[in-house]
């Protein structure tokens, strides 16, 4: 049990103080650094809010792709990367489609934390 406000709430508040209150008082030559700090805080906040849910969903997809031969979750993403390198899904349109679906889900999940604005600018959310 953790005390409130939560870590992600504190991060959001601290970021707001940095951008709204401190930034106007900082010399222009350090504004870029301040924005990088604010960006880092936003990523950390979004990752804290998302928790492990996106990762679990991707791993479940990978288990479905590889079925009984998956031998557990560790290494499944590496296996997918290897299979894509060697074109292992070329003989099955369905498996290739399933693999591609995982790539989309993985990428969109990462961008929801790292850069949701970029996702939106590309018509995704």
């Amino acid at each position, binding site marked *: 049990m953790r005390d409130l406000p939560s870590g992600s709430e504190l991060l959001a508040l601290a970021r707001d103080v940095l951008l709204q209150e401190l930034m106007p008082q900082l010399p222009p*030559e350090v504004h*870029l*650094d301040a924005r*990088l*700090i604010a*960006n*880092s805080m936003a*990523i950390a906040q979004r990752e804290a809010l998302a928790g492990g849910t996106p990762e679990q969903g991707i791993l479940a997809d990978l288990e479905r792709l590889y079925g009984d031969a998956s031998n557990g979750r560790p290494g499944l*993403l*590496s296996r*997918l*990367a*290897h299979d*894509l*390198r*060697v*074109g292992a899904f070329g003989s099955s349109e369905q498996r290739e489609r399933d*693999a*591609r*679906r*995982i*790539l*989309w*889900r*993985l*990428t*969109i999940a*990462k*961008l929801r934390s*790292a*850069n949701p604005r*970029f*996702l939106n*600018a*590309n018509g*995704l959310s």
Partner: protein
Amino acid sequence: MAATGLPRSEPAARAALARFFAATSGADAVKITGLTPLRGGAIQENWAVDAEFSGGAVAGEQRLVLRTAAPTGVAASLSRLEEFAVLKAAFAAGVTVPEPLWASDDLAIIGKPFFVMRRIEGTAAAHRITRDPTLDPALPAIAERLGGELARIHTIRPPRAGLAFLVSYEKVGPAQQITAFRAYLDRHPMPRPVLEWGIRWLEQHPPPQIEPVLCHHDFRTGNYMLNGTAVTGILDWEFAGWGDPHEDIGWFCSKGWRFARLDREAGGISERGPFYRGYESESRQSVDPARVFFWELLASVRWAVIALQQSDRYMIAGERNLDLALTGRRATECELEILMLLDAGGAPHDA
């Protein structure tokens, strides 16, 4: 000077630079009146140098830039003396660049090799260029001008005695780049299946051989200087080398370099039309959309790998730099673009 820091102390560097400037310019004496680090350039350090020359080839007050290596660099970049030679070739070919003046690898001057060029006016700030509404009416003409500049760069072709240090195209073509991408991914701690998928496509769809030209290899918004609406210089030649001319066109147009305006496909500043028109008009060669597609996809893979390498400088080399650390996150933006380019069906509804 402490943050980035020349290896020699500032007074010693100023005195040695003044002697070097006098000797190379034929001046009776040179006084360094300003030496200030310029922001930007994760791989190189740039210093604004103000100097008063008494006599010689450049008598009077001069505003210069000294360019030298940052503490940690990227293995693929040219040495400063090599970059200086490329800049001289571009200047001679009529490309709009800061005039290259002198170079030295004498470590007794500032402690590391460097070259000196004239300082040009303007901004290279990509976010400002792509966001500033007052620039909008002029941007198509700027894109056309940049197409012409790129075509002039591509008039430089091998063999060139002064550029003999550049690796032959046979060793840096698409197949070799693919091998290098995979070798990097094999060393990287996290699997990157989207990059693997993109690289596989590149491997399966190589463009037909072409006569190589000098490619800038980082020709993009952020690497040209605008003074108002005038293009005052193409910057940052550290990755130049022989390549397919479409390599530079694909790099300029790739989504990673559109900054605030993803919808403006030519460098975030215009549609492709004006940029291509400027290139075709100057080069009298047609831009081949299929070749551009190949190189644009490769650009997304390359930028992703560079982003991860920048992050490695924090993660592995221990360089304490937030900008570099955050750059690694941008690899996923490139991966989204790879998916959008290669999967016409788009994202699944439940993604």
